């Protein structure tokens, strides 16, 4: 068992490597295809927990405060992220609303929730109920989280509308920017360290 854990298989070319101990910020690359196979885990479980809780709070701000406000001939209009998705769902192009809603609201929400759940138990030295399922769900969610694209989309929309209307970025944009950074930090493969940290405790 222990011997098997010390092997690392490159996911891009199937080459088997022996695991090595990396110092801070060191990375190991595959000898055959040059892909990244191992990096030292830069964040501890406590740090992951702290960042996940911050992300949860910022997520609320990013969804409650409007991201864009516009004025036109005395009329005001402003929209939060969820309002814009819902407005789009009213029309005849509901699938697009679904895609936008999934990638910038639902998937990040699930990622943050699962990370808070897993890391809060891990910080107490325990495996959370449903540990395996949650860890697998995180792996499948990762490609579908597109907050950084959403942030750029908000900025482009502001510039695009500025040509014809009076546009102001809302408070939500700042929250969205912070959320993007936090989610990039916590949603990577760093969470896989829990498999080793909780070795023997997983039911």
């Amino acid at each position: 068992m222990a011997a098997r854990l010390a092997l690392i298989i490159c996911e891009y070319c199937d080459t088997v490597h022996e695991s090595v101990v990396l110092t801070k910020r060191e990375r190991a690359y595959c000898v055959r295809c040059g892909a990244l196979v191992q990096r030292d885990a830069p964040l501890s479980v406590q740090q992951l927990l702290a960042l996940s809780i911050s992300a949860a709070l910022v997520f609320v701000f990013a969804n409650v405060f409007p991201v864009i406000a516009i004025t036109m001939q005395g009329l005001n209009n402003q929209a939060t992220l969820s309002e814009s998705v819902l407005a789009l769902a009213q029309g005849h192009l509901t699938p697009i609303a679904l895609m936008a809603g999934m990638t910038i609201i639902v998937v990040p929400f699930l990622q943050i929730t699962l990370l808070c759940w897993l890391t809060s138990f891990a910080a107490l030295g325990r495996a959370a109920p449903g540990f395996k399922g949650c860890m697998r769900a995180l792996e499948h969610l990762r490609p579908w989280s597109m907050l950084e694209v959403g942030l750029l989309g908000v900025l482009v929309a502001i510039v695009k509308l500025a040509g014809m209307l009076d546009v102001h970025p809302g408070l939500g944009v700042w929250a969205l920017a912070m959320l993007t950074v936090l989610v990039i930090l916590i949603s990577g493969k760093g969470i896989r360290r829990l498999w080793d940290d909780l070795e023997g405790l997983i039911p």
Partner: protein
Amino acid sequence: MTMPLSAGQLNLVLCHCCGQACPVAHARCDRCDGALHRRKPNSLARAWAFLVASLICYVPANILPVMYTDILGSGSGNTILGGILEFWNSGGWDLALLIFIASVVVPCTKFLVLGTLLVSCQRRSRWAPIERGKMFRMIEVVGYWSMLDVLVVALVVALVQFQSLSSIDPRGGILFFGLVVLLTMIAAISFDPRIIWDSEVEDG
């Protein structure tokens, strides 16, 4: 230099969910219960199917307007390329370039790279495996940025709703463009990059 051993030669298989090396005889990873496959099932056929489907959707995505702008009574439809040209002509070359990269360069690069990878893997080509692996990792990283236009249209449509005064409505083009992004992402996920190296390992 001796050839490094591959997992297949050692009767091991990589668990994609937790990264553990598992015995090839197991159907599920003993650590995370994830399903184990030596290679992703039907990788080439699935990737081809999604790639062709996305190519088909790319045609209406570019021909149909993505949104209909009606400001104070004067209405006009806009395709993706039309929107980029409008930015370019009104002096916003930087934004025009950004949208051009996200909605034209990125999807076209994905088509070309995935097509090249699929053809070369099907012919069991041993040409430039390192470079082909790098190309695959590149489209994995940049692929989802083409969602940009979809999200911009969503936001703009949601904001500009002043009843009779003016409004912006989404049009069918954006639906097809969204499908292109979705389908190319699924195609890239279905493709198993380890196949690039298989002919070299198996044919010796």
